[in-house]
């Protein structure tokens, strides 16, 4: 049973990490608590649903298309909401408030237009049958989530640490004003971060929608709290930290539910969060930097 429970925890943790990747990137580089992020996750799932169900596209095509569409949507919405605030030098919390208002409106619009019911991908899109290795059962969608998490984390790390673009992004995360003075076009870079993080959210929405087979307008909202925990424990903007923190959270939740009491799994997860913050105030892997919110 322990093997299966560890696999359960690993998969749950991978979904948390997958959700948190784009969130931590946006938070770390643009330093905006963007609550609309959860909506891009919903959007990705619904776009893929439309492409596969209504247009009959195969998943292999619909998946990247949905991710790109979510990214483009993110450029538009983030630009509309945040550019003006950045120009007038508004306090950081104003951006939190504006994204809060926007996400309320976006979820409500999606519910009004698409209906509140749960929808599912057509059964032909992916096999639901589980495979069994050494008494551990795992589905195709779950394998896909694990692979996607590995590929995306690897890709992001290579981007951030192996390219000039990554250097510019890290410079901007460190100090946007200095980065601007050094000739980095911060507005365009912010749009690029919006695109990448929106696309990551959309990709996560498709995969997690496939795994749980339940797509509904507020699905992104339900992930936000865990997303916050993962990016804080992992450290803001820290891709590797988000991966480790996500896996840790998933495994702790599953083991608590499996071996202690299922009613306590959230409490234990949050107690660990609080304990981590008390002992390491900048996240598990963060350096001690003091920044005002």
């Amino acid at each position, binding site marked *: *049973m322990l093997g299966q*429970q560890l696999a*359960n925890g690993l998969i749950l943790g991978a979904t948390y990490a997958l959700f948190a990747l784009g969130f931590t990137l946006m938070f770390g580089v643009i330093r905006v608590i963007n609550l609309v992020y959860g909506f891009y996750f919903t959007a990705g799932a619904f776009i893929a649903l439309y492409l596969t169900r209504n247009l009959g596209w195969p998943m292999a095509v619909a998946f990247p298309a949905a991710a790109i569409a979510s990214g483009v949507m993110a450029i538009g919405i983030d630009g509309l909401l945040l550019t003006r605030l950045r120009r007038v030098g508004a306090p950081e919390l104003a951006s939190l408030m504006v994204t809060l208002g926007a996400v309320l409106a976006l979820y409500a619009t999606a519910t009004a237009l698409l209906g*509140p019911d*749960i929808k*599912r991908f057509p059964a032909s899109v992916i096999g639901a049958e589980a495979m069994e290795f050494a008494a551990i059962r795992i589905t195709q969608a779950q394998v896909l989530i694990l692979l996607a998490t590995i590929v995306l984390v690897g890709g992001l790390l290579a981007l951030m640490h192996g390219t000039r673009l990554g250097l510019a992004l890290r410079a901007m995360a460190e100090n946007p004003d200095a980065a601007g003075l050094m000739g980095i076009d911060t507005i365009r870079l912010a749009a690029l971060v919006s695109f990448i993080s929106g696309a990551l959210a959309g990709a996560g929405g498709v995969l997690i929608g496939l795994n749980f087979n*339940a797509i*509904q307008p507020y699905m992104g909202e339900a992930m936000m709290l865990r997303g916050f925990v993962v990016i804080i424990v992992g450290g803001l903007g820290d891709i590797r930290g988000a991966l480790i923190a996500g896996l840790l959270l998933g495994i702790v939740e599953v083991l608590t539910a499996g071996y202690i009491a*299922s009613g306590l799994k959230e409490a234990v997860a949050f107690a660990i969060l609080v304990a981590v913050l008390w002992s390491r105030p900048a996240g598990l892997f963060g350096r001690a930097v003091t920044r005002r919110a």
Partner: protein
Amino acid sequence: MNRRHLLTTALAGATVTALPAFAQPAAIQVGAVEILTGPAAAYGIAIKAGLELALDAINLKGILGGQKIALTVEDSAGDKNQAINAARKLIGRDKAVVIIGPTLSNEMFAVGPVTNERKIPTVGTSTTAAGITEIGPYIFRTSLPESDVVPVTFKKAQARGMKTVALMYANDDAFSKSGYDVMKASADKLGVKIVATETFGSKDTDFSAQLTKIKALKPDAIAISALVEPVSGVVLQARQLGIGPEVQLIGGNGSNSPKLGDIAGKAADGMIVGSPWFIAKPDEVNQKFVAAFKAKYNKDPDQFAAQAYDCMFIVAAAIERAGAADSEKITAALAKTSFSGVMGPFAFTSGRDPASADGVVVLEMNGGKFGIAK
């Protein structure tokens, strides 16, 4: 004083914007408080559809000698305070003589005391938790409480050979918790051994840890009390983890929805659910309802719509028998309800709960659709 003046002006503004366009003076005002927006909107929207379908039929003839019923459905967004505000608005401003709803048991615990104090009869169509009608003498419900439905389902499972059961429920909403309490009591009464009790959150999507644990205990059955969304997730993951058809799946009231088949598909096959109603119920009243519902909304009705449909007729009949749009008289008339609708024959107990659970049948999922369990 200045602040109060400002407030009054703001509120008066609200009165103007939300005034019904051409309210006929003769119409009888009935109000409903349902969840129409936000994450739980699916339930309120189904109920509103059922109410309005019934209303079309009622207003064709009119009641009390040709008067029409004007139904105002207000949104609670699933929020306690908004539910209270909506009920107060319906009673205080729209002069509703009867309130239908609210959708969730938690909301009823907040709204019930308010309407009861004002002596406005309030009829829940979907509130199945324990203690609802104990709020006061003006609080009714047409939904069978779980305590009437679950024992029937459990007896069926026992007849199929259930000796041990694992219970699962969403521990964060009143409806699911009440259902679990009844499941536990039923199992104890029937001498079925409870081998595990596992909980989850009603917004959870991952149940693998709990199911892996249950699988290792090899129970004869798994009984789940929660709304249909998490139940579907539990069922799907149970199959993925290799819990096969030899384990009897048992659902509570929340599982009794066509959405179970929509979401879980074949994975839900073999699951049994007790229900006062099901879509293929052969009698003529029901078949007419299902056809009319499909014609108007272009989708299948669920249990929530069916309960609401009957409730609207029960309320209209009570107003007719009361002889006037008077809340006190309607309350008295409601208590004497004797009605036969899509759910079957209906009357209230002296405790204002549904009198008879005779209509409860056990349904079984097969190929994504509910049919009578053999």
